[in-house]
C-alpha cells in the first residue's frame, strides 16, 4: 500500500520536474538555432522556429510536449536534427547502463570489504591504510584518475585500450575511473556504519550471550552497518546509470552523459527536458527500491 502511494505520488512530481526543466531551459539566453552565421534572410530563421514550434507561446509548447509524452514520445532533437530524443536515449542508455552497473558493482565489491575490514581492524594500520585509500578515492576527481589510468595501463603498459566502446577490455578502465569515487564513499559509509553498529546495545547483548566475534561482525553488525550504504546506493546508482560526461568524453564512449551536459549548452530543449525526466524517473525508482530494501535488511523498519 505504502509503495503504491509512493508510485502514485511520483507522477505529479515528474510533471513538476518536467515543467521546471522546460521553463528553465527556455529562460536561458540564446536558443537552439542561434549560430555564428545568421541565415541569409530572417525568413530562414522564422521557418526554423515554425518547424519546431518555437514561435508559439511557451505554455503551448509545454502542452504539446505533454501530449507527445503521453504517446511515449520525448520529441525531436533540435541539435541532432535527424534523431528523436527517444533515439538518443535508445542508443545512449544501454551504454550508460552497462558502464554504470559495472561501476556500481565495482564500487560495492571494493568499497564494502574495504570499509568492513577497516572497521574490524579499527585503529590499527589496516584501518589507517584503508581509510587513506578511501579518502583518496573520494578526493581525486575522475578527470585526474581517468588520464592517469590511461597513461599507466593503456599508453605505457599497453595492457588495455585507450578509448572507444568495442570489446570487454574496453570497459575495464572506464569502470574503475567511474566507480572509484563511489567505492571510496561506500568504504567510508561502511566503516562508519560498522563502528556505530558495533557499539549498539544488541551487539553488546549478543556478545554477552557468547556469540563468536566473526558471527557478530558478519551476521549481526553487517546488516545494520550496511544501511547507510543502501540509502546512498539509490542516488549513486541513478548518477552512475545516466552516464558521466567526463568519463564518456575521456574514453570516447557513446553514452548519455555527453548529451546530458551538451544539450543544455546547445539549448537543445527537447533533449534537456527528456533527459532530466529520465534522470528523475531513475532517481525516484531507485529510491523506492532502496526503501524497499530497508524493509528486507532491517527488521526495525516497517512502512504502513
Amino acid at each position: 500500500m505504502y509503495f503504491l502511494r509512493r508510485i502514485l505520488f511520483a507522477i505529479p512530481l515528474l510533471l513538476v520536474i518536467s515543467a521546471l526543466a522546460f521553463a528553465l531551459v527556455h529562460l536561458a539566453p540564446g536558443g537552439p538555432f542561434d549560430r555564428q552565421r545568421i541565415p541569409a534572410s530572417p525568413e530562414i530563421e522564422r521557418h526554423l522556429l515554425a518547424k519546431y514550434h518555437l514561435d508559439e507561446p511557451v505554455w503551448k509548447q509545454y502542452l504539446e510536449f505533454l501530449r507527445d509524452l503521453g504517446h511515449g514520445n520525448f520529441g525531436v532533437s533540435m541539435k541532432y536534427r535527424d534523431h528523436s530524443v527517444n533515439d538518443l536515449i535508445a542508443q545512449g542508455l544501454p551504454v550508460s547502463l552497462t558502464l554504470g552497473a559495472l561501476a556500481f558493482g565495482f564500487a560495492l565489491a571494493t568499497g564494502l570489504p574495504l570499509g568492513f575490514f577497516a572497521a574490524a581492524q579499527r585503529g590499527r594500520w589496516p584501518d589507517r591504510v584503508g581509510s587513506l585509500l578511501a579518502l583518496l578515492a573520494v578526493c581525486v576527481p575522475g578527470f585526474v584518475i581517468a588520464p592517469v589510468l590511461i597513461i599507466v595501463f593503456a599508453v605505457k603498459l599497453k595492457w588495455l585500450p585507450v578509448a572507444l566502446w568495442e570489446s570487454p577490455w574496453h570497459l575495464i578502465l572506464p569502470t574503475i575511473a567511474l566507480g572509484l569515487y563511489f567505492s571510496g564513499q561506500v568504504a567510508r559509509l561502511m566503516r562508519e556504519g560498522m563502528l556505530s553498529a558495533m557499539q549498539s546495545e544488541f551487539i553488546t547483548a549478543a556478545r554477552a550471550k557468547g556469540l563468536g566475534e566473526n558471527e557478530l561482525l558478519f551476521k549481526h553488525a553487517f546488516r545494520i552497518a550496511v544501511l547507510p550504504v543502501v540509502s546512498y546506493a539509490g542516488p549513486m546508482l541513478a548518477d552512475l546509470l545516466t552516464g558521466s560526461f567526463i568519463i564518456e568524453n575521456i574514453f570516447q564512449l557513446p553514452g548519455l552523459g555527453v548529451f546530458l551536459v551538451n544539450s543544455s549548452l546547445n539549448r537543445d530543449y527537447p533533449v534537456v527536458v527528456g533527459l532530466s525526466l529520465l534522470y528523475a524517473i531513475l532517481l525516484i525508482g531507485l529510491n523506492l527500491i532502496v526503501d524497499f530494501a530497508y524493509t528486507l535488511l532491517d527488521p526495525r523498519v516497517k512502512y504502513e
Partner: protein
Amino acid sequence: MFDFRRARRFNLPARFFFLLVAALPLGGCLRHEPPADLTLINKGEPESLDPQIITGQAEMRIVEGLFEGLMRLDPKTARAIPGLAERYEVSPDGKNYTFHLRTNLVWSTGEPIRAEDVVYSWRRALDPATASEYAGQLYYIKNGEEYNTGKITDAARVGVQAPDPFTVRVELNHPTAFFPDLCAFPTLYVVPRRTIEKYGDGWIMAHPLPSSGPYELVYWRLNDRVRLRKNPRYWDAANTRSAVIDVLPFNSASTALNLYEQGRADIVWDKELVPAELLDVLLRRPDFHTFNYLGTVFLRFNVTHQPFDDERVRRALGMAVDRERIVKKITRSGEPATTSLVPAGTANYDPVPGLAYNPAAAAKLLAEAGYPGGRGFPRFSTLVYGIKLNEDIAVELQQMWRDNLGITMELRPLEWKVYLSTENHMDYDVSLSDWIGDYNDAQTFLGMFTSGDGNNHTGWKNPGYDGLIRAAGEQADLAAREQTFQRAETLLVHDAAPIVPIYNYVGVNYYDPTRIHGIYANVLDDHPLRAIQKTLPPP
C-alpha cells in the same frame, strides 16, 4: 580475527545489490566488426548528415563522401571540378549556366540520377518547409530568395530547370564568378527524392540509403562512429581509394592523440583535437601538418555605442594592436598576423593592408578624438567566447590598450550561445570574433559588412561600401571585380575600421605522411574522402 572460510558461506544481505546489478541490462552494447581500412577522427558528433541541413565542417566532411553536386572539389586545389555534371557552359553575360549531366549516373541503390533530381534537390533546399539554414547559398539563383522567403510559392519559377534528363539550366540574378564552386557546396548536393518523400525528416537513417557520392552509409551510431563503404555504383568509383572508412566523433584532444599514437586512428583533422599544452612539441613532428585556410580572427566595434561611433577611436584602437605579439605569444601555431579581413590565398583576390601597428600614431589619433592619454575614455568591455585561447588574446589586448593608449578594458567571457545572442543583439562594446569563408571568394568575407546584413553585428552602415559590394557582384570581369572589392576592403579595414583584423587561422591535422596519401593542404581545408588512401607498412 577473521575466518575467511566462514565468511565464504555467509549469507550476505549485500547479495541483494549484486542481484540488482546482474538484473540490469548488460547486453547489446559491445560490437564486433571488422576494422575499417581508414579511421578518421572528426571534431564532435555530426549534427546531421542531410546535405541541405548541415552547416558545419565536421558534417560536411562526411556528407562530401555520401553525396555529390553538379561539381565537386579537387582534392589538391579545393576548386570546383566536374562532378555529376561532366561539363557546363556559361552565357556571355555570365548569368545563364547549362550543365550537362553524365549519362552513367545511378544512386547507390541502382536507380538512375537525372536532371530532375538536381531540380528537386535545389528546390528542397529553398523550400521553407525544409528550414535549411544555408538556403542563402541558392539566393544567387533567379527567384531563389523569393521562393525561400515566401514571396512566391510556385517552385517552378525558381531559375533551375531540367529541359531533358541530362541537362540542367540555371538562371542567376547576377553574374556570379563563384557559382561553379557553389555547385560543389553541400546545400546544392543532389539528394534522393523518393527516400525523402517516403521517410520525411529522418530520411538519412533509412536503410538502404541511396547516395550519389563515392561512399554509402553503413551505419551511424551516435557518439560512436559513422561507417562508410565504397559505393561501387559511383560514376568515378575506379578512383575511390579506400573501401571502408570509419569517422569517429571526438571531443577530447588527449584521447584523440592517444588513439592516434596507438595506431588505432589514421588521421585527426581538427586543430581543437591537438592538446593545446603540447602544441609546441607536436608541431615540430613530421606527422603534424599546419596549413593556411580561409579564416580570420578580428575585432568588431559596436559603432552604436559611444565612443566607438567615432572612427578615430576605432582606428586608434586598431593601430594599438600588436598582432605579432598575439600570434607569437598566444596562438603559437604559425598563424599569420594580418591587417586585412580577406585572407591571403583567396581566389582572384589580393587583400589590401589595413591599420598597421603604430602606437605613437594611435595615441595621437585618440588625443584628436578628445581622449589625450586615454583621459576621459569610458571603461568598456570586450566580449569573448569564453575559452582559454580567446581569453588569453583578450588579456593581451587589454594590456596593449592600457600601455599604448591609457584606456581600461574589461573582459566579458560568455558561454557560446550567450556570446552569440549578445553579439547578435549588439549588447557589447568590442567583440572578439572570427569568420571562416564559406567558399573561396572575397564576397564571403566582405559581403557581410554591408548595411543590415544579418552577420554585420557592428551597426556600421556605409552606402559607399554597399555600392561597391553590389557593383562587384555584378562585374563579370575578374580584374575589375577585384579592384572594386579592394576599394571596399580599404574602407572596411583602413578608413572606417568598424572591424580590426588580427590574424588568420591555420589548421592543424595529423597523420603519417609516409602511409596516408591523398590529403593536400588547401585554403578550404577540404579533403575529399574519395582521394584518401592508407598504404600498409612494408612487411
